[in-house]
């Protein structure tokens, strides 16, 4: 077998963020190769380098034995690289055939497009690959699975010999997934090479021949699928970095039944629609009592983000109810939910949690600005006092309240968010990936903050991709898989292995 792709020592930084650190990838011709890793592990960056969309800072890229480091997109396309993006890039008002030939339309003797020939070409390609689709249909009439078929046909039509699929199943229903698998196997048997980017391990094991695992921008393993198993892959993906709280467990406190039964967070039959009409959260019910931490584990992309956003008021609820301390807030604004006692550490501090151009002091009052103003004027002295207080009690460095939040390190930015959300008057806390991208010292500090809040009788919903974190902090653990709770169990009964099986869907339990 010959090598289709060889990437070696690839480095790529965006500002201070190292997306790829000596990443490598080796793909043989005629195989299905899975590139796995958590969000932000650097998979997409590596593929964008392969496709010529960005240039690596260092390292070497070879395609079919030829050095192509730093090539352009058009060079990549003509060399046979075809990238199928997660988000479709089709013109909805054109037909399938018109979309396929876009940019290389067959012409008649005059300038008119030869539509009949385009349609014939499409039909021929469609038959030879098994990607059945009528060339005359409008793209806007297609289902998601069909649109994806058009995307794949499009890159094949341009002569792709190496297909890169970025999270192809994220938007598909199970039957559509099975069809896609059949097509990909057929393409492989025809001699095409396929790189599949995913973080769903069941897909990886079912479909791929070889696997490359990435973590934190680095390639950590290259495995034969036949010689590994999902839990090994999961371990490699998440890594064995020793978190300070690893092995520690909270002791479930035996406290008398709360005298106020409605206190805390209650979610009933919550459903949230994704962008493509799929229920990304599908009938989830649970409650979190005061003084309890409910941890949600799961491979990312199984609806955790949408669940938290729906509870926080940042995403429209399709069906179901959200209650905070017994008050139905399902249709209330974000501000009203704050008033009802909600506090929220968002998963993406750069997009949601902070206004990066604002100073640390100003960020510490985001969402609290009403409390820090009199007659519509912000009380600067009070803001500065508050900033000084939070900076010293949360040890935010550098201790400068007028520094832009952008200038802080990730860990200190997260401390600003945590300080603010812990500072407000709340009874329910949503903590989403509270320690992502944070150094070890800050992780311990943030964990302690969460446990302190638990001791102060707050109801805490914790979502984390770090199994260790969920295991160490939670009283109860739920595993989310494809929009549903696969299982809810007391953390005393949970082990990394048992959770892992629910996370990748090999075990399906009874959600409480």
């Amino acid at each position, binding site marked *: 077998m010959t090598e289709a792709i060889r990437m070696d020592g690839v480095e790529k930084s965006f500002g201070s963020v190292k997306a790829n650190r000596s990443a490598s990838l080796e793909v043989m011709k005629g195989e299905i190769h899975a590139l796995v890793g958590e969000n932000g592990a650097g998979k997409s960056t590596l593929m964008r380098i392969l496709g010529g969309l960005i240039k690596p800072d260092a390292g070497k890229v070879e395609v079919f034995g030829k050095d192509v480091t730093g090539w352009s997109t058009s060079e990549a396309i003509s060399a046979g690289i075809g990238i199928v993006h997660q988000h479709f890039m089709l013109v909805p008002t054109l037909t399938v055939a018109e979309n396929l030939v876009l940019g290389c339309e067959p012409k008649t003797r005059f300038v008119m497009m030869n539509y009949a020939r385009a349609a014939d070409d499409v039909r021929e390609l469609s038959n030879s690959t098994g990607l059945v689709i009528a060339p005359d249909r409008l793209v806007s009439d297609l289902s998601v699975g069909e649109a994806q078929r058009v995307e794949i046909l499009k890159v094949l039509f341009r002569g792709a010999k190496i297909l890169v699929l970025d999270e192809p199943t994220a938007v598909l229903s199970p039957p559509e997934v099975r069809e896609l698998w059949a097509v990909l196997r057929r393409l492989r048997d025809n001699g095409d090479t396929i790189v599949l980017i995913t973080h769903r391990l069941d897909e990886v094991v079912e479909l791929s021949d070889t696997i490359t695992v990435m973590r934190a921008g680095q390639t950590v393993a290259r495995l034969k699928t036949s010689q590994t198993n999902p839990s090994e892959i999961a371990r490699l993906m998440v890594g064995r970095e020793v978190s300070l709280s690893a092995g520690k467990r909270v002791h479930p406190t035996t406290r008398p039944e709360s005298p106020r039964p409605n206190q805390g967070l209650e979610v009933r039959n919550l459903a949230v629609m994704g962008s493509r009409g799929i229920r990304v959260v599908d009938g989830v019910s649970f409650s979190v009592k005061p003084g309890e931490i409910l941890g949600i584990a799961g491979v990312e992309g199984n609806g955790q983000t949408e669940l938290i956003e729906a509870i*926080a008021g*940042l995403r429209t609820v399709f069906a179901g109810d959200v209650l905070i301390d017994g008050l139905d807030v399902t249709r209330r*604004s*974000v*501000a009203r*939910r*704050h008033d009802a006692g909600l506090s*929220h550490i*968002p998963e993406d501090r750069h*997009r*949601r*949690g*902070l*206004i*990066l*151009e*604002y100073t640390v002091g*100003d960020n510490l*009052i*985001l*969402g609290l*600005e*009403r409390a*820090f*103003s009199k007659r*519509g*004027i*912000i009380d*600067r002295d009070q803001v500065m006092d508050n900033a000084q207080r939070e900076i010293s009690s949360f040890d935010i*460095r*550098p*201790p*400068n309240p*007028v*520094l*832009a939040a952008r*200038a802080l390190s990730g860990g200190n930015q997260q401390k600003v968010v945590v300080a603010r959300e812990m500072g407000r008057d709340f009874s329910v806390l949503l903590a989403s990936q509270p320690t992502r991208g944070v150094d070890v010292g800050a992780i311990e500090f943030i964990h302690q903050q969460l446990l302190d809040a638990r001791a102060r009788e707050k109801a805490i919903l914790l979502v984390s991709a770090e199994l260790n974190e969920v295991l160490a902090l939670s009283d109860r653990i739920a595993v989310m898989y494809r929009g549903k709770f696969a299982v809810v169990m007391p953390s005393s009964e949970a082990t990394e292995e048992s959770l892992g099986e629910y996370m990748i869907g090999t075990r399906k339990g009874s959600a409480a």
Partner: protein
Amino acid sequence: MTESSLAAGTQRTFSATPWRERAEEALLPPFVALLVALVCGDLLILSYGQSPANVYRLLLEGTWGNAYGFGQVLYKATTLAFTGLAVSFGLRAGLFNIGGESQLAAGGFAAALIGLALPIGTPLILALPICIVLAGAAGGVVGAVPGYLKTRFGAHEVIVTIMLNFIVLALLNWFIAGHLHVPETLHTPEIHAGFLPRLADLDADFHGSAANLALIVAIVAAGAVWFYLFRARGGYELRAVGLQPDAAEYGGISVGRVWMRAMTWSGVIAGIGGINYVLGYKHYYEDGFASGAGFLGIAVALVGRNHPFGVLIAAFFFATLSQGGLAIHAFVPKQMMDVLQGVVILAVAMAVPEVRSILRSARRRSDA
């Protein structure tokens, strides 16, 4: 070394640098842009076979060099300050208000109507606030429409404000031409009350120039905008929406309400600008008086870096170019100044990101 002295050390170094960096980033790009524009101007002048030094000397003499020219500069700067403030206010919320033309015209029209409605001899102290409020209200209504349509239906404010320019200006034209004009002209009769004193009334040197006390109103407006943006809670929320709408939404700020508010007040500011011409200069509303000022306000906001005081400086600068064009008309075509304005806008648009990235990489090198 103890922990606390370490912390104190970092604090000192960190609180000192950002101010210097911020000043550099605020001042250097416009300066570079100005240099680029000057060089382009030199080439243009040379291409007409004139001496750049001579033309620039005439330009300065005709604008800042005598009281009349300076007064004209101040008059033109006043209108531009209002439209520039209006555009920058919208941009702070992430909205592009292209409707300055119609908002300004609506404000001027409202001021003229009030001036006509008030009895002769109404004291200025009474007439001026009424005129300002109603001119602002008229501009605000025109600005509120795109704000509402964006909030309610997601209609893009650029499209709506452009379309409203046509609608509002055509309506005003119809009203003036059909109902309220002095025969043979396209302007209203002279107002009865609300005349703003001209600078010439205070200092005879300004005689003949149109500069008037609307200038003070503009400066007060800039101060008010500054206070609102950087001291008031509403401004905190407005800038948050402009910088990171997702984070603002997360913080519980109603993004739609802020858009609505920002577009309305942007219209109010542009509308008040109408008093400069109507109350301060001609004392009537004339069809087309706002022509170009709304669009030039975009350039003023851009060059002024969306800061109220930057806008004042930029308005003064563009007014100088515009008045300077008249002063050098004998040597080079007046249109050269229009070209130069374009060059300044392009130079600023390019110099700001460019100079900033050069600055930052230079700083990184010096840190390393």
